[in-house]
């Protein structure tokens, strides 16, 4: 059981110091979680620390590939609204 950081990570450094298992490391093109070390913070904290501070929705996923922070959950932007805005911007 381990979490994974995927390509939408912006390398902001917020998660790395927080991991109790020191499982997160700087890498190119983005930070990664050592799956062998990650405990999902069970026993240490009520919620996975990296996922609790990460500002990018969908950048950290669980073993089922589900986003720890689904679209809209951090920014407050409803996904449909986001999609509409992207369409409008491309149309310009």
């Amino acid at each position, binding site marked *: 059981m381990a979490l994974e950081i995927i390509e939408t990570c912006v390398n902001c450094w917020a998660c790395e110091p927080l991991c109790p298992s020191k499982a997160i490391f700087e890498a190119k093109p983005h930070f990664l979680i050592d799956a062998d070390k990650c405990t999902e913070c069970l026993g240490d*904290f009520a919620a996975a620390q990296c996922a609790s501070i990460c500002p990018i929705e969908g950048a950290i996923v669980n073993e089922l590939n589900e986003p720890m922070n689904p679209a809209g959950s951090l920014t407050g932007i409803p996904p449909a609204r986001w999609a509409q805005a992207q369409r409008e911007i491309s149309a310009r």
Partner: protein
Amino acid sequence: MENIVDLPVIAPPSSGCSSGSCGSTAQQMNSMSEDIRRRVQDHPCYSEEAHHHFARMHAAVAPACNIQCHYCNRKYDCANESRPGVVSELLTPDQAVKKTLAVAAAIPQMSVLGIAGPGDPLANPERTFATFRGLAEKAPDIKLCVSTNGLMLPDNVEELAKHNIDHVTITINCVDPEVGAKIYPWIFWKNQRIFGREAAEILIAQQQKGLEMLVAKGILVKVNSVMIPGVNDEHLKEVSRIVKAKGAFLHNVMPLIAEAEHGTFYGIMGQRSPSPDELKNLQDACEGDMNMMRHCRQCRADAVGLLGEDRGAEFTMDKVEAMTLDEDFLTTALEKRKVLREKVAAEMDAKRAKMHAPQAPAQAVITFQRRSVINEASAEFSAGRPVLMAVAAKGGLVAEHFGHAREFLIYEATAVGAKLVGHRKTELYCEGGDTCGDGESVLAKTIRALAGCEAVLCSKIGFEPWGELEAAGIRPNGEHAMEPIEEAVMAVWHEMLAAGKLNPPASERQVA
């Protein structure tokens, strides 16, 4: 026979001492205690006067953030965007020190190194303090400055004081958690992500506590606030009162930056920014005992140079790494900076001395305020109304060509003096060479940006823009080239007064 009572009103002389009374920018400096004035006189953000002469640098060493603001998106770093949360290159503390030394040598006007982001400098404070330590050792004359959201401020005040950080900025957008819940979707606090009103309560409490602790240590505190119409615009008046009461010495109210392209909550959801009028009205309302900063350029967390003139591209890390920064290099650079600072300080002292010199009676403008029933033909004029003017400026002088100005400083001229009230950005009208053919639409944009201004002062202006500006009611004026801005502005104001252009409308005239 009409009963005429003439009440003489003596206005300041039109030359020499234009910034001689309250309401003027220079007066802001004079009403500070000597101790504070000395501490801020070469900080371009803390002192309006200093920003004409001194440069600052932001070192982008603090990428992590512990909160989310609805006006920030950490994803994009675009060279065209000049917004606080955005940088092109993240630096390690060592790189930041090297870059600072390189910039401070190339730009002797540099007086301040600030750490402002791209995240929060106190979210992971080790990088921030390592940078400060490195600099304090190698360039001890450079002032150290930090800008934070305040969540971790109480925990770090002791450390800030130990590192001789003299200036701290806290971004305080609200003191009411209901308002806060509309600005901050979440914070990370004590190992949990917290949402809504509860998050705002904690953030506000920490900010206020941090402010009090800094003031108790004698550290100068500036408060930054983002004005978000419909969310905190009225509320910021209360914020201003409260932070003033707690000892903040400067309040910087800035307009929200929000476009859909930025991918921020406010941008996507269509939250509008304030108009220049709305911004000025709020700043005017907060002015009182509180000093208001009017010249903020809302620069990037890696900005380099004089305010409004970003030279970051000259100092990318690859260029900096190629430089040799040995002892001799550093000593020479430090000497150059010292010499320049002494020169500017002497100029500013001379200007202040002139301000307190006795005024020559022959130069005083005396206007009479008649309070009586009189026929229209012999009506005299009362002291004139305020006028907004745009200035193409450089180094505190009217020294820029209209066509070369990337921004115009906006001054408000009244009977008692001239005051900087803001700035308006423009696209370059003239890129030089053969590109002036595209100038027309750029000119139209500039004219729109200068709405509300009745005159534009510059060192030189071409024939083409002259006509369009006049047609738009903005009188171009190239007659005060290379003069100090406030003197030039007041000279133009007095010309307008003498020409009878500054009377209140007939319905407002006093009648006995």
